């Protein structure tokens, strides 16, 4: 497994960086936040990103995508993380596209061109309660007539408030794996969506299902066969989110390292103080070590997505801790101004916090690794 970027990935990275610096700097995100955009992202920007193929990075070419794979998705996510770009990339282009592509039914496949064109947003409704734990899904789909009725509540459905379709994980047989995925139009009767503003200036929805009707055509994959599709989609999302968090860490570290050079106290740049130097150097090491785990997760998903769970959890666990350290050190090293809304470092701290919880926290992924390793 080669862990350094291919030539193609290096070019992708460079072009993404250039585009984002032009169109999606932290300033652009700040503007979006200050305008309290109800979308939570810039539809025009997302269209442009999609035109470059980003929304189709995991969609096969015959479904309108570019099919570059998970490592490439990670490269994009990392660059987006660096300037805190808000978009439905993770929810729709990574997770929903993976679920629909894995299911490979005609109904599912029909949505892929729209996703990769950035024309429709599809969101995954998995979490219930306040911690990510798909095995504990209780929202249930019970047979009713020729179809099903869904009842229950989902939380933290990222981009759920703007989604054109929801992929809903429902309990249809015994825990943990007895799940079925349903495609649900959020405008359907019985679906109630509550937008919640989150600390990072974005949104996640709570979605309540009250006798929502679904039929066989709405099933993504097979009845009771949702678990493996869901795992694929979640692992794709976790790997990309790990990459984004690594970008968040690198972005936070970048502005902090610059601040260390610019800010003067006691007659010299604060970056000349050895205690700060050593902490900055340690942080650099953590980011580098995490970058390896993130690259590896993408490679493993591209190689064999069914065998990549450990590598993905490793990336997410490392990315969480690294981002946390980067933003904590970033705020502390900025001193007072780090606490002001005017400086960007706080925005990184907020996004890191959301990325920490979303799709499984450190303990969740550490436990998965321990189980895989047999201790």
């Amino acid at each position, binding site marked *: 497994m080669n862990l350094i970027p291919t030539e193609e990935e290096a070019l992708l990275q460079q072009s993404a960086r250039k585009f984002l610096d032009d169109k999606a700097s932290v300033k652009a995100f700040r503007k979006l936040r200050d305008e309290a955009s109800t979308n939570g992202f810039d539809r025009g920007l997302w269209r442009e990103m999609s035109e470059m193929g980003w929304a189709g990075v995991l969609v096969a070419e015959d479904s309108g995508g570019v099919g570059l794979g998970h490592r490439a998705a990670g490269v994009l996510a990392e660059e987006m993380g660096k300037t805190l770009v808000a978009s439905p990339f993770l929810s729709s282009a990574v997770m929903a596209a993976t679920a629909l592509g894995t299911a490979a039914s005609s109904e599912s496949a029909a949505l892929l061109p729209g996703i990769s064109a950035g024309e429709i947003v599809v969101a995954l409704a998995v979490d219930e309660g306040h911690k990510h734990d798909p095995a504990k899904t209780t929202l249930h789909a019970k047979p009713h007539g020729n179809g099903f009725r869904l009842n229950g509540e989902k939380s*933290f459905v990222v981009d759920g408030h703007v989604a054109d379709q929801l992929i809903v994980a429902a309990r249809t047989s015994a825990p943990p794996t007895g799940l079925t995925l349903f495609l649900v139009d959020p405008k359907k009767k019985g679906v109630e969506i509550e937008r919640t503003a*989150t600390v990072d200036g974005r949104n996640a929805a709570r979605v309540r299902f009250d006798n929502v009707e679904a039929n066989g055509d709405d099933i993504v994959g097979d009845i009771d066969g949702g678990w493996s599709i869901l795992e694929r989609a979640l692992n794709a999302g976790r790997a990309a989110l790990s990459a984004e968090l690594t970008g968040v860490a690198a972005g936070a570290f970048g502005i902090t390292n610059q601040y260390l050079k610019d800010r003067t*106290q006691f007659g010299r740049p604060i970056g000349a103080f050895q205690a*700060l130097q050593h902490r900055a150097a340690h942080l650099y090491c953590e980011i580098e070590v995490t970058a390896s785990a993130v690259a590896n997760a993408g490679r493993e998903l591209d190689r064999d997505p069914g065998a990549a769970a450990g590598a993905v959890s490793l990336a997410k666990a490392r990315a969480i801790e690294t981002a946390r350290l980067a933003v904590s050190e970033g705020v502390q090293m900025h001193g007072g101004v780090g606490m002001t*809304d005017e400086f960007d470092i706080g925005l990184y701290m907020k996004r890191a916090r959301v990325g920490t919880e979303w799709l499984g926290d450190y*303990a969740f992924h550490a436990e998965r690794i321990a189980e895989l390793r047999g201790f």
Partner: protein
Amino acid sequence: MARDDADAPGGRACSLERLGNQDGLSRVWGKRMSGELSAEDFRADIKNWLEANCPPAMRGPMRDEADICWGGRNWVYQSHEQRLWLERMAAKGWTAPTWPGAYGGGGLDRTEEKVLREELDAIAARSPLESFGLWMLGPALLQFGNEAQKQEHLPKIVRGEIRWCQGYSEPNAGSDLANVQTHAEDKGDHYLVNGQKVWTSYADKADWIFCLVRTDREAPKHRGISFILIDMTTPGVSTRPIKLISGKSPFCETFFDDVKVPKANLVGELNRGWDIAKYLLTHEREMIGGGARGLLGVRALGEVLANYASDEDGQIVDPMLRTDAKRAEIDTWAFMLTLERFKDQAKAGRGVGDASAMLKYYGTELNKRRYELMMTAAGTDGLEWEGERSNDGALAREWLRTKANSIEGGTSEVMLGIIAKRILELPGG
């Protein structure tokens, strides 16, 4: 931010005041012999007085910042009871229990003050008044002010008539506080002040500000600073709130543009303001370090864990969170005992001195750790920023607020430097 500590939620501010007066330095202003009045009688008197005078609405913990009474010219009392409680306590001098009666204080000694505190706690009485006057300026004036200044300012602080703020930090004087550039030029009968302060807490609501200003630009930087008092209504004073990452604006930038300040407003000696600053910084550190305890009151780690992360028997379900919570609990308990130990030391007449840097450093870093665990326990619920369910993102905003703990009042790095140089006597770089 490097110097301020006012953006405190209710319980914390409450605890600041408490620790500030109880620990303080080892100075005992009240000279009353404990023999004058037997301890039991004293306690009974207080108990009776409180029973009669503390309005029921002023009992029970503060729910949020809005419950804090800051006083001042423009104060709008939250309730009739709030006013009544302040007036009654102020009349006894018990808003500043250990200050001399001559300046409106309670004139209690430390033992009596402890009894008062215990009886207030016993009925869960709210603090009648919080202020930088009580915490900072009062102690400074008692130590360094002249008689006229004490007579003029202390009673108004005790009664909550004047609200003070602190003008220490500047854009280029954060950790390097002695680098203050705000200039006070000697104009014969007054100083002409020009410059800018930052992290002036609640300056937009304060009546007066105590400031470090440069009065000698030629002297070594620690020797050209003076400590002066400025009425915020003086022409040329303006303020602008600073929005924080928590979304709140408890701090301001404060600008001085040809502000005339009477020479009588100089506290202590000209160009020796750094002595006062150092005195107050030590005092402040003890209060802030102790603040970790106050925060325990507002939002107990155990409570958050119990709400979000525990099974029916109360055991934390996630083994990793439980492990981290154990470690935090152990360090918190040991830190609280350390606060106790230094209180005991202060009571024994030995000051806390530079060890206050340790309390400040350890307590604030610990508090940040505790809030990280709370956020982990709360999971995605803790990410909400608006709306009723999350009380407008109260936990997330508190969590963000804790990040300032290790910056305001002297950064952790400054504290470690103080310990290294003054306690461990390590050589200068």
